[in-house]
Every structure is written in structure tokens, then in C-alpha cells.
């Protein structure tokens, strides 16, 4: 990035119980974006080039993970933003919220192992042509940590066949940590502007943390958001 390139403003939604919002903001800032926290009770979004729904335990994960958060006032604005083609990234709990909100297909269930998993996992990039993976190579192997108790992606046979046919499975686990259907780690919507994944790219943006592969995902988002900003200008 050169000094003349604009910093895209990226909103990070904060629900009661979000706990990775500041990590996400820190990572985005380090990758050349201007993060802007967005409180869940806001009915409108500020002027942003993209939105991130961070990890955590929104509303205590009551009923089902993400089930209550999808009714937060800000989610109407996020749905509208997504419908207009805005870039939306959901990480972990954010992925669960996007599924509950119907912005992404499928749902996340308790891990098949019954255990909370918290460790680095190896992922395979299936789609490098999305706004969230454009800095990756097709088939590239990424190391990014997961930390979740309910990350078992579920889609029935009909839905899975649709996702496979449409190429919506953007990331897969090389070694499945939670029992997800077809090793799904991350899914894009049909239009390609909404992406959810269980692994935490914001925790892997510095070699000191064991891996900086997460920067490829978040860096793709920042770059795509910047491109949209320039195109709109």
C-alpha cells in the first residue's frame, strides 16, 4: 500500500458478548483499513466499505448460537447492506449469526466430538476468486486457529449438492476438527459478497502468533473494500 491509497472504513459490529471485535479491528487496522465499531443497537450503519461480524458469544449463545443476535436492530441494516452487494464477513459467532439470519446457507451445530476445540487447523483454499480470498492461491494451504464448541457445519444432501455445484464452499478443513459436513470451514453466498468461516483469521496476522495466514483473508477483504471505494469515487 502506498500513502496515497485510501483507507477503506470497515465496520465491526459489537454485540453484547462479542469478544473478538477488538482483535478484528486491530488486525484490519494493521492491514490498511480504518476499523469502525458499530454497536448492535444501531438501526443504521455508518458509511463503510465492508462489515465484519466478529467472534464471541453474542447474547450468551442462548437458544442457538446467533439466534438472538440476528434480531439485533443493526442486523436489518446489515441485511440491507448485503442485499445491495456490500461486503460482509462473519467470523465464528459472526458466521453463526449470518446463517441464522439467512444471509448464508446451512447452520452450525455442536461439535461432533462434544469438545470445545482451540488450536491451529490446516485449511485448503477452494475458491481464490472471492473478495475474501483474492490474496490466496487456489488450493493454498492456510494455518489459522479455531476456537469453538459449535462449529460443526450442517447442510442436508440437497443443500450440499447445491453448494458444491455453485462453488460456494470457499474453504475446507484439511483435517476436520468438528465434524462439519464435507469438511466445510467457510461458505460464500450465491452472489459472492457474504462470507462466513469458523477459523479466526484475526488471530493469525503476525508470525509471533504462530501464523500470519489470516492476513491473506483479511487482507483480501481490505483490498476488495478499497477497490470498491475507488470504483465508487
Amino acid at each position, binding site marked *: 500500500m502506498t500513502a496515497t491509497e485510501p483507507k477503506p472504513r470497515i465496520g465491526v459490529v459489537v454485540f453484547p458478548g462479542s469478544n473478538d471485535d477488538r482483535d478484528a479491528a486491530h488486525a484490519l487496522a494493521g492491514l490498511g483499513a480504518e476499523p469502525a465499531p458499530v454497536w448492535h443497537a444501531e438501526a443504521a450503519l455508518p458509511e463503510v466499505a465492508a462489515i465484519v461480524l466478529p467472534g464471541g458469544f453474542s447474547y450468551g449463545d442462548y437458544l442457538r448460537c446467533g439466534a438472538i443476535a440476528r434480531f439485533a436492530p443493526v442486523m436489518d441494516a446489515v441485511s440491507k447492506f448485503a442485499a445491495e452487494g456490500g461486503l460482509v464477513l462473519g467470523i465464528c459467532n459472526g458466521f453463526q449469526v449470518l446463517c441464522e439470519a439467512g444471509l448464508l446457507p446451512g*447452520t452450525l451445530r455442536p461439535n461432533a466430538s462434544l469438545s470445545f476445540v482451540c488450536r491451529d487447523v490446516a485449511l485448503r483454499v477452494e475458491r481464490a476468486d472471492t473478495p475474501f480470498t483474492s490474496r490466496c492461491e487456489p488450493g493454498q494451504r492456510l494455518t489459522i486457529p479455531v476456537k469453538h464448541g459449535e462449529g460443526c457445519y450442517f447442510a*442436508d444432501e440437497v443443500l450440499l449438492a447445491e453448494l458444491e455445484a455453485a462453488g460456494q464452499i470457499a474453504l475446507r478443513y484439511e483435517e476436520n476438527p468438528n465434524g462439519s459436513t464435507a469438511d466445510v470451514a467457510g461458505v460464500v453466498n450465491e452472489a459472492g459478497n457474504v462470507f462466513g468461516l469458523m477459523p479466526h483469521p484475526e488471530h493469525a496476522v503476525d508470525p509471533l502468533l504462530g501464523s500470519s495466514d489470516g492476513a491473506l483473508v483479511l487482507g483480501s477483504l481490505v483490498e476488495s473494500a478499497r477497490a470498491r471505494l475507488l470504483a465508487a469515487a
Partner: protein
Amino acid sequence: MLVRPKPGILDPQGEAVQSSLRQLGFAVEDTRIGKVVDLELRVDDPERARAELERMCEQLLANPLIESFEITVSPE
């Protein structure tokens, strides 16, 4: 309302409880765990109450991808 995992959906919680029941010596063949939601409505017509409860299940209380629900209405 009774909300439970649909047949064929993996229920790890049920499996964990089943293995504990077996350790206690009960010959349990299958265990599925759902949840019960009890609520009170001030509605005169039980059929209207049932229709409203159905909408609640469809919109929030159950995830239709993985869960089914049953409704019981008991007038006070």
C-alpha cells in the same frame, strides 16, 4: 413447545447423556435431547394461540434446517 433435533441429525448431547446412562447400567438404545419452551399467552381462542405458537417456532424457537417442533396448548 417441544423443539428437538430432526431424525438423522447428529445429536452429540444425546450421545453424551446416553453413554452416562449406560455407565449407570441402563440399556439405553437411543437418546435424543430437545428443549421445552413453556409460555403463557392471553388469547381466548386456542386455535389462534396455536397458530401464533407455530409462527414463534418457525421464526425463532426452532431452526427448520435441523429441528422439528410440537405444540401443546392447555387452557387455564
